[in-house]
């Protein structure tokens, strides 16, 4: 599967990029986050992160599809 990942805030700083195309065997956000957190050194555990796929919030076990745009959202600080 091939996904487009977008990174924001400290995750973008840590990954050193705002987006990447990734080929992976991960089929759910949970597996994908484990993979990229290890590679990029993300410190957030999954209970502090939300996941969006194609602009909508989803659960950690959501079934991903080829070409999905995926965002792992660290805790927000607007306002």
């Amino acid at each position, binding site marked *: 599967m091939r996904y487009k990942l*977008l990174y*924001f*805030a*400290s995750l973008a*700083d840590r990954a050193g990029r705002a987006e990447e195309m990734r080929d992976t065997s991960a089929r759910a956000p949970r597996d994908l986050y484990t993979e990229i957190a290890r590679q990029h050194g993300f410190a*957030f555990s999954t*209970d*502090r*992160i*939300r*996941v*969006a796929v194609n*602009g*909508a*919030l*989803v*659960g950690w076990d959501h079934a991903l599809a080829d070409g999905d745009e995926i*965002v792992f*959202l*660290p*805790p*927000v*600080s*607007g*306002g």
Partner: protein
Amino acid sequence: MKRFRLSDAVIDAGAEKRALEHPAAGGCVTFEGWVRNHNEARAVLRLDYQAYAPLAESEGEAILEQACATFGLRAARCVHRVGALSIGDMAVWVGASADHRGAAFDACRWIIDEVKRRVPIWKNEHYADGESGWLHPDSTPVDPSMI
């Protein structure tokens, strides 16, 4: 017209307030969030806001929709800045109009609290000592109701 917007330009509070007008409304309550020069005892020089725009807009709209239904509002609006801001700049504007003041006060407070809790916007503070950092303030787990 969208009730929730992200803006990379100065917020026109007067124009936003006029959009709250309604013949049945007895008043409105507005909130302006400003960039302050300190945070947790550190001197702040300026800051940047970043947003995941598609989700920020849909979450913001959902919050205003929910506020209108819950508090019986005549109108509700919110604008949040993105990009580079200076001390004193307006970072966020919230307004709610209702038949009576109680609902307008309660809704305005609820809206800004929900925006801060749910909408994917992040603040990067630049400090006087040259450091900077993205704020991810809450050390508690994500509320499952937000997913």
